[in-house]
């Protein structure tokens, strides 16, 4: 996985890339969670993520819950068809903020 973070005002956008599995979830959390901790609104852009398993879904849930705790929000953007299918299989499309 590679990633890029852009900042605009209070919004940080994290562009993830590649396949998200158990091997890289720690790295993804290291990038995303401190941004939420600092009170930023975080947009996770998944347009270049071709595969995500349950570990990746856990990162999205953890990010969402951390944002609620910090009274900010996480928006998951540009989800690819294959990743959306996994999110829907987990019945999380109504829980996560998808755009």
């Amino acid at each position, binding site marked *: 996985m590679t990633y890029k973070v852009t900042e605009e005002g209070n919004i940080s956008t994290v562009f993830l890339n590649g396949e998200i*599995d158990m091997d890289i979830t720690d790295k993804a959390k290291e990038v995303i969670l401190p941004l939420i901790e600092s009170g930023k609104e975080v947009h996770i852009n998944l347009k270049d993520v071709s*595969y995500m*398993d*349950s570990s990746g879904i856990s990162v999205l849930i953890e990010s969402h819950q951390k944002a609620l705790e910090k009274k900010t929000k996480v928006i998951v953007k540009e989800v690819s068809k294959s990743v959306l299918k996994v999110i829907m299989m*987990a019945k*999380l499309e109504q829980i996560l903020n998808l755009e």
Partner: protein
Amino acid sequence: MNQISETKDFPVSASSLKEVRAFSRDVFEKIDLPQEQKDELVLAIAEAAQNIVKHGYKGVEETEDRMEIKISLKDGQLEIGFFDKGKTVVPENVQHRKLDDIKPGGLGTFFIKQIMDAAVFKKDQKGWVNHLVLTKKI
């Protein structure tokens, strides 16, 4: 192709999951199935392999053990075998979390059950500790 049987072993490590997916995709390339279904099957296989790494070797920092995956297709019945030497699995304890209990983790087994027709731990390990078999009529 109506019949197939391919086996590969992998180091028990999170870094092997990419190789597990590559192996699975290579095998499914030889089977005439919609891409969407192939993707689901790859996910089920990767989740089962992940369960071995995550739960079968919980608390183990590093191991030289390997896990073996066998993908077979015969008469429209897809069978995927997983062999490992991790902690003995008690099938009754393998449960996914309730979906309305939103928290990280516990989804892998749920995905496997959603995708496959059956997931059974067999008692014919032959030198292995666990032998999980996933099946699906395709």
